[in-house]
Structure formats: C-alpha cells, structure tokens
C-alpha cells in the first residue's frame, strides 16, 4: 500500500453521499479524484421499477473488496486513497447503489483505477440485486461481468 494510502470499504443501508466519498479520499498531495456512482434505473424491458433490494454475503464481500483495493495498488502504484461504498437493503430508484472514489496525483491513474474497480466489483463481489416492478414478478438480476451468469458465459464453450 502507498505511503499513508487508506482503503475504506463500507456496506451500508444508509443513503450514499458523493461528497462524503470525495472528502474521504481527498489528500493534499493529490490533484485528482475520480468517482463512479452507480444509480438504480426506473425501467427494465419496458417494466417500471418501483424499487431495488440489495443483499450481500457481507464478510466475503468485504474480503473481495479488499482484494480489489490490493489489486488496484499493484496496478496503479500512485493511487493514494480508495473508498468503496455499496448500499444494501431497499434502494429507491435514481439513488446511488454504489460509489467508488479514488485519488491520485495524476488523473489518468485514478480514472483507470475507478473503471477497473467497478468492472471487477461487478464480476467478483458477492452482492445481489432484486428488481421489484410495478406489475409482474420481481427478478434477481445478473451482471454480464459475472463469469458463471448466463450472460457471462462464452457462447462458444
């Protein structure tokens, strides 16, 4: 881990705040903070989504998030602070389900690291989302990044 680098990971039922994440990764020697905010959408295949519910295998999710932090620090050694917040429980539409904040002296590192972080999170962190629609059966979603989801399987295999 970089000198004084801080990894903050949080799985919470509270509303997420971009300012709180941004402040927690701010550092006096960094010029760049990159943030990614995943928000919940209001429609899926023409059905109106009324809310989302997230659940996690909490201790393992934290473990996998720590692995992502460690991988980021191997790939982008100038990264300073990392904060990954994922919301659990009921999330109203348009509210943030995930916020990732990463600081670095130069912007390309934090921008690339944020992209890697959200891509990897979707593939490896045991968290699940259920969409509840105005009408029709609720549905557990599947990330295409997840290797054992239908969408993640190589059709040629």
């Amino acid at each position, binding site marked *: 881990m970089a000198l004084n680098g801080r990894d903050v990971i949080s799985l919470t039922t509270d509303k997420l705040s971009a300012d709180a994440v941004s402040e927690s990764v701010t550092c006096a020697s960094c010029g760049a903070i990159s943030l990614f905010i*995943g928000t919940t959408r209001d429609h899926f295949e023409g059905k109106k989504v009324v809310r989302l519910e*997230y*659940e*996690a*295998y909490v*201790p*393992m*999710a934290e*473990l996998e998030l720590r692995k992502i932090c460690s991988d980021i620090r191997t790939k982008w050694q100038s990264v300073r602070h990392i904060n990954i917040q*994922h919301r659990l429980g009921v999330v109203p539409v348009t509210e943030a*389900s*995930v916020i990732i904040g990463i600081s670095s002296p130069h912007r390309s590192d934090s921008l690339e690291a944020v992209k890697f972080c*959200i891509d990897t*999170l*979707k*593939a*490896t*962190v*045991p*968290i*699940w*989302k*259920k969409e509840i629609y105005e009408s029709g059966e609720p549905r*557990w*979603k*599947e*990330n295409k*990044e*997840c290797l*054992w*989801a*239908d969408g*993640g*399987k190589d059709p040629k295999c």
Partner: protein
Amino acid sequence: MNGFVDAQVSVLYFAKSAELTGLKSELITVSSNVTSVQLWQHLEEKHPRLAVLRDQVVLAVRQEYVPLSEQPLTLREGDEVAVIPPLSGG
C-alpha cells in the same frame, strides 16, 4: 470406511437460492472429502427447486469461490459454505 470423517458445516443461501430453499442457512453433515459437485447434488436432493440454478452457480467455501468440480473440498467441522447465484452488485 474411506478414511475421511464426517463434518458438520453451515450452508448459507443468498438471493435466488434463499428464495428457492426458503432458508437463509442450515447445518448439514457431509464427508470432509466431498467434492463441490457432490455437495451441490446433496443440496439439490434436499431442495429440488435449486435445480434451476445448476448451470449458473458456484459455491464459496471458507469465503473463497469454488466452481462445481470433482476436486475434494477438504471440509472441516464448522466450515462455512455458501451458495452463490450469479452476482448483480454495483
């Protein structure tokens, strides 16, 4: 006797697997030498509705992912095994 003892382990169910079994967790006793495929078959026998997940599930043993395979799991008494349907975090 195959030289392996039985181990009582807790199985955690998440997302769709929790809905299909109606359980968040349960204790089961299996051979410590069981493979992940055999363990899955055992869970399917107990909860036939899990069959729909067969081709898109992995297990986590002691919080590490384990695909369904013929590798022995070398379970220890009190281990935590989780059923991991396709992820949808983010």
